């Protein structure tokens, strides 16, 4: 009995000590604990938001920002299931609309922050003959990578553009549906597809791809990034501060540097 007792006592002592030191750290920090707000944002926003975060936290030392990056659909699902999120920056209008409809974001607390364009990319090293969207029709066995139209917004815009050119049906055989835009980029970077369709901002992140053509804005629905404050946010005021900050010229300039289109 004694043999078993000793390690247990030791364990309990360690636990008590550990919890003590933890309390200590907390009470020290609580003197001036900054408010932490969580922003669920589309993965394509990551680089821009990280640079904005740096600037913002310097100006507002009382607020810390935590980002949760993912696909807009997954983020919307999380919020609908009650995830503790303060702000939502979506890459798709319909996902924002769903949350407004569900009463998670109020109509007055959302705005269209920035826009993006749709581009056709090819590998820089390939001797491609693809110079515009209409050329895709000439492909024989070579593949075209786009996001799954039903679940990836970029894929849906790509479908719209190809439909407006009346070549969607003809290129069906060549389409490889990818699970996200990142996967489309990987396929083009490694030269395993003849071309891919992604956002202008994505094309900018890769040195191995070149933009062969930019889709006509009229050929697809507008690509906007809506921003909204979650109604149930515990730190509504702090969330509102960042919501406004994102719309200042300082932030918009960062978005512009990252390839987004600012009105």
């Amino acid at each position: 009995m004694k043999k078993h007792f000793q390690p247990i006592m030791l364990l309990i002592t360690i636990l008590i000590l550990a919890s003590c030191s933890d309390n200590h750290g907390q009470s020290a920090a609580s003197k001036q604990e900054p408010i932490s707000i969580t922003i669920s944002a589309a993965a394509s926003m990551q680089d821009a938001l990280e640079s904005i975060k740096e600037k913002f936290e310097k100006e507002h030392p009382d607020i810390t920002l935590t980002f949760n990056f993912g696909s807009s659909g997954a983020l919307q699902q999380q919020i609908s299931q009650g995830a503790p999120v303060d702000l939502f920056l979506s890459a798709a209008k319909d996902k924002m609309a769903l949350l407004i409809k569900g009463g998670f974001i109020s109509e007055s607390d959302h705005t269209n922050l920035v826009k993006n364009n749709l581009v056709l990319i090819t590998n820089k090293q390939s001797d491609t003959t693809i110079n515009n969207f209409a050329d895709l029709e000439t492909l024989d066995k070579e593949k075209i990578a786009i996001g799954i139209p039903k679940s990836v917004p970029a894929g849906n815009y790509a479908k719209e553009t190809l439909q407006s050119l009346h070549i969607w049906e003809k290129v069906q055989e060549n389409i490889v549906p990818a699970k996200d835009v990142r996967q489309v980029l990987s396929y083009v970077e490694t030269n395993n597809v003849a071309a891919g369709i992604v956002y202008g901002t994505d094309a900018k992140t890769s040195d191995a791809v070149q933009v062969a053509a930019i889709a006509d804005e009229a050929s697809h629905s507008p690509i906007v990034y809506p921003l909204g404050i979650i109604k149930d946010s515990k730190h509504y005021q702090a969330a509102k501060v960042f919501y406004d900050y994102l719309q200042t010229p300082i932030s918009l300039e960062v978005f512009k540097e990252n390839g987004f289109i600012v009105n």
Partner: protein
Amino acid sequence: MDLLLTKEDWSNFWPPISLSLQVSLIATVCVIVSGIILAALLARKKFKGKVLLETCLLLPIVLPPTVTGFLLLVVFGRNSIIGKGIEWLFHQPIIFTWWAAVIAAFIVSFPLMYQSAKAGFIQIDRSIEEAARVDGANEWKILTSISIPLASHSLISGSILSFARGLGEFGATLMFAGNIPGKTQTLPTAIYVAIETGNMRMAWIWVITITIISFIMLALCQPKQQ
């Protein structure tokens, strides 16, 4: 939940299942053969770089599947020597084909078979193998008549694990074989797309089907294991 299917749903229902079963069966057969041979060769050997080699063999378990998929894309892709060789041989690249799915399933399930087989072979009493050797049996005879029967428990559980892993393989397959309905869309990929696109009914039906298949598979193997 309403599980009634439309005609269109039914025509979409079967292809991913049959594809997944074919792919994981073929991958498992390859994994069993190569896993047993490699484990038999390496189990009791000691040489420089063995740890390094075994770590490489185990990597697919550690790496995120998307990374494994990306590595496959680079190694077998159209820019690599291997990829070019395959294209020259078969007049088409391997990526986005049925075989790419088999390779992906093979790579991710191999470590499970290898580890199980190795554990099984190490446990065998060496004197039995030695006795056979003294009696003039060659290495192949020893492997097939002594080592494999004696290690059969480990080998069977390794095979089951490998098959299950291959059947559930998602990340690397999606990357390397793509997600082309009717051609390279496996069951896990189909379920993923169904959930992403809000087609929960189809997702549930596939999930139930794959669960039933797994139960049957396990039940078939269970008596032999005991």
